[in-house]
């Protein structure tokens, strides 16, 4: 059955082609059926594979399709690798992806580019599946670039809006910066190991031992790629701007696909990273810094999608922290639960925006609890999950990461906990401002308030169930659980050197958990008292608040450091290098030939004697050269 894993890929690809080629011919219903159906098919195949993997005796399997590149000694086969890590990601991508497709079918109903939208969406899912299925870094990179392209297409979906196009370009360019690092890392890998297959590279890397310089270089370069794709400091600014796309796209980018690619890549390369502890420290620090910075920005945002975007960046930071302290399983666990509750949050936000006719500013919302009951309750579940309130899913995954961080270095835990508390604060600030208090919009929009149709609320309810229950697959042993997910993934992460971890007693874990949960609950109640009766602030904040409202002026800083000097540098180069040097060389060549021809023409005097003299002299010179020099 594992041999048929290509079906998982083929279906979304077919969906992309059908909805793309016949986007103007097919009816909207047919397009929606194709788009959702193919992803549902992928999901079912993934489920079958997953249940096979649950059976004892399942081993990581390689499926060979054909030889992709064969140059000299370098062989790059088009192989798929199916193991536990891949299967978890397959389920997340196709499962959450399907719900988002289903939601989109209703959300985008009135849009003119319905077929185009679904073909992009299917291509997105296809690329992401290719990324997690590839058995070597090149296949992974194809998927990697594919999601980059699709994010560009989808963020700029409404291409008639200039600022949306700018956001799309920003996302693409930011990703390209990261991809460059990934690509250089790939080349370094090829030159060093003359292979890109996971198994081969890991085996050769293990032979090099820890603290090898080349491994640190490779892992750091791959990390640059992951930082770009997973929106970490310093390449995170594209993700909040990615809100320009339709809301379900934001859900897809933020939850199931794209941003988890970096996490997947590092988890997949865990052998390399464990061999380079220096890089792991960098990963942890980047993750922690991003988690804190993004959470602090989210505290003072007023755009419902912006808050969620920064919360994604912050949660990705937590995942990086988990990876950085060697808790790969915990990071993947958090990817999973995050996919559930973040998709739910975005789809819930989409439902709110839909009800308000495109309004995204939470200062003009409020009191939506009675009008949108389904959205209200599911959004509440998602907020509880992301804030780490037990027994919702986010609690278990976030706690697994924080516990691992504590074992590595207690300071990481304290800072991480601060980030988690900020998460609880900004999420419930958003929640109370949006759904409680009085409605602050116009009379006109108040009359149009309505709950979304069932095609949109059913995915919400399903995702709410997942957000509630999803964490139960990873209940740690200190709480009497079995940590099913951790055990399922254990064969993947067993390879490579074990990271020495001081074993904390179950009691420590329990205490940390209780402290985190109690503080989160306290923050939720504090937030409730602050924002339950929210009145729109009119005066812009001062001091720190102003910095937060302006996102620490990071965009302005990048603008000052890169965006504006770059055209100036280009102009300078154009004036002082392009025209005098390059154009000068090209035109000079032409002018030299003309000038030379004019001069040499004078030799042709018509005097036959001169010609003969030239001939004889030439013959003599050739003779001398042949005689003396050769």
């Amino acid at each position, binding site marked *: 059955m594992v041999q048929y894993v290509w079906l998982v890929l083929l279906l979304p690809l077919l969906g992309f082609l059908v909805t793309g080629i016949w986007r103007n011919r097919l009816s909207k219903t047919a397009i929606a059926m194709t788009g959702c159906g193919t992803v549902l098919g992928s999901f079912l195949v993934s489920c079958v594979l997953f249940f096979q993997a649950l059976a004892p005796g399942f081993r990581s399997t390689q499926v060979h399709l054909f030889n992709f590149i064969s140059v000299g000694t370098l062989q790059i086969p088009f192989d798929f690798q199916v193991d536990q890590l891949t299967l978890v990601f397959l389920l997340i991508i196709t499962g959450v992806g399907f719900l988002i497709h289903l939601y989109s079918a209703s959300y985008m109903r009135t849009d003119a580019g319905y077929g185009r939208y679904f073909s992009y969406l299917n291509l997105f899912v296809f690329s992401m599946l290719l990324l997690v299925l590839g058995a070597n870094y090149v296949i992974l990179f194809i998927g990697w670039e594919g999601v980059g392209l699709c994010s560009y297409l989808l963020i700029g979906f409404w291409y008639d809006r200039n600022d949306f196009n700018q956001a799309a370009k920003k996302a693409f360019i930011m990703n390209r910066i990261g991809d460059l690092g990934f690509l250089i890392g790939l080349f370094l890998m090829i030159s060093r190991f003359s292979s890109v297959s996971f198994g081969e590279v890991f085996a050769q890397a293990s032979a090099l031992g820890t603290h090898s310089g080349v491994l640190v270089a490779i892992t750091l370069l791959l990390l640059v790629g992951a930082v770009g794709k997973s929106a970490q400091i310093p390449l995170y600014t594209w993700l909040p701007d990615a809100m320009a796309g339709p809301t379900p796209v934001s859900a897809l980018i933020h939850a199931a696909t794209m941003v988890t690619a970096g996490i997947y890549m590092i988890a997949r390369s865990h052998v390399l990273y464990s061999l380079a502890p220096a890089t792991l420290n960098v990963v942890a620090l980047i993750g922690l810094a991003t988690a804190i910075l993004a959470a602090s920005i989210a505290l003072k945002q007023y755009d419902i999608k912006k808050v969620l975007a920064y919360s994604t960046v912050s949660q990705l930071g937590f995942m990086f922290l988990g990876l950085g302290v060697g808790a790969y399983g915990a990071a993947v666990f958090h990817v999973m639960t995050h996919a559930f509750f973040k998709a739910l949050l975005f789809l819930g936000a989409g439902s709110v925006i839909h009800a308000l006719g495109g309004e995204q500013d939470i200062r003009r919302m409020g009191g939506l609890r009675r009008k949108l009951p389904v959205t209200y309750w599911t959004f509440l579940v998602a907020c509880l999950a992301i804030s780490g309130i037990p027994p919702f899913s986010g609690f278990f995954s976030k706690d697994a990461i924080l516990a691992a961080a504590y074992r590595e270095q207690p300071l990481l835990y304290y800072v991480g906990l601060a980030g988690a508390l900020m998460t609880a604060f900004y999420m419930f600030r958003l929640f109370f401002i949006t759904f409680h208090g009085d409605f602050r919009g116009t009379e006109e929009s108040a009359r149009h308030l309505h709950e979304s149709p069932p095609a949109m609320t059913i995915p919400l309810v399903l995702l709410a169930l997942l957000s509630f229950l999803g964490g139960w697959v990873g209940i740690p042993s200190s709480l009497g659980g079995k940590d099913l997910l951790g055990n399922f993934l254990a064969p993947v992460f067993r390879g490579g050197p074990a990271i020495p971890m001081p074993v904390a007693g179950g009691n420590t874990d329990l205490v940390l958990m209780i402290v985190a949960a109690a503080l989160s609950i306290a923050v939720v109640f504090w937030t409730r008292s602050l924002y339950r009766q929210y009145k729109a602030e009119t005066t812009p904040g001062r001091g720190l608040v102003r910095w937060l409202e302006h996102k620490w002026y990071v965009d302005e800083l990048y603008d000052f450091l890169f965006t504006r000097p770059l055209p100036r540098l280009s102009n300078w180069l154009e004036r002082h290098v392009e025209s005098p040097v390059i154009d000068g060389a090209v035109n000079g060549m032409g002018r030299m030939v003309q000038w030379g021809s004019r001069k040499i023409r004078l030799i*042709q*005097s*018509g*005097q*036959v*004697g001169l010609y*003969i*003299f030239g001939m*004889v002299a030439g013959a003599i010179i050739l003779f001398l050269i042949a005689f003396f020099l050769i």
Partner: protein
Amino acid sequence: MDMPVNDYIFLSLALFCIGVMGVLIRRNAIIIFMCIEIMLNAVNLMLVAFSKFHHNASAQIFVFFIMVVAAAEVSVGLAIIVMVYRHSHTVDVGLMNRLKH
């Protein structure tokens, strides 16, 4: 009875150089033509000398070919010179620069 082959080479070289100098220096087309013939015959002499030296007759076949081609060439060349003379009443190559343009 046998002369060393070097003597033939020097003689041939001398004849060839005379021919070259004649072509370079003289302006009369007919003299230039004769000088070319001298060069050709210098080469012929060399070929015959080496033919004898190596006891190989094939070089003499070349000589016959060269003589035949030279005869044909002389007839054409002289005809051209006659035509030039009829046209411009001179055989001075210094004045024959009409093809320059």
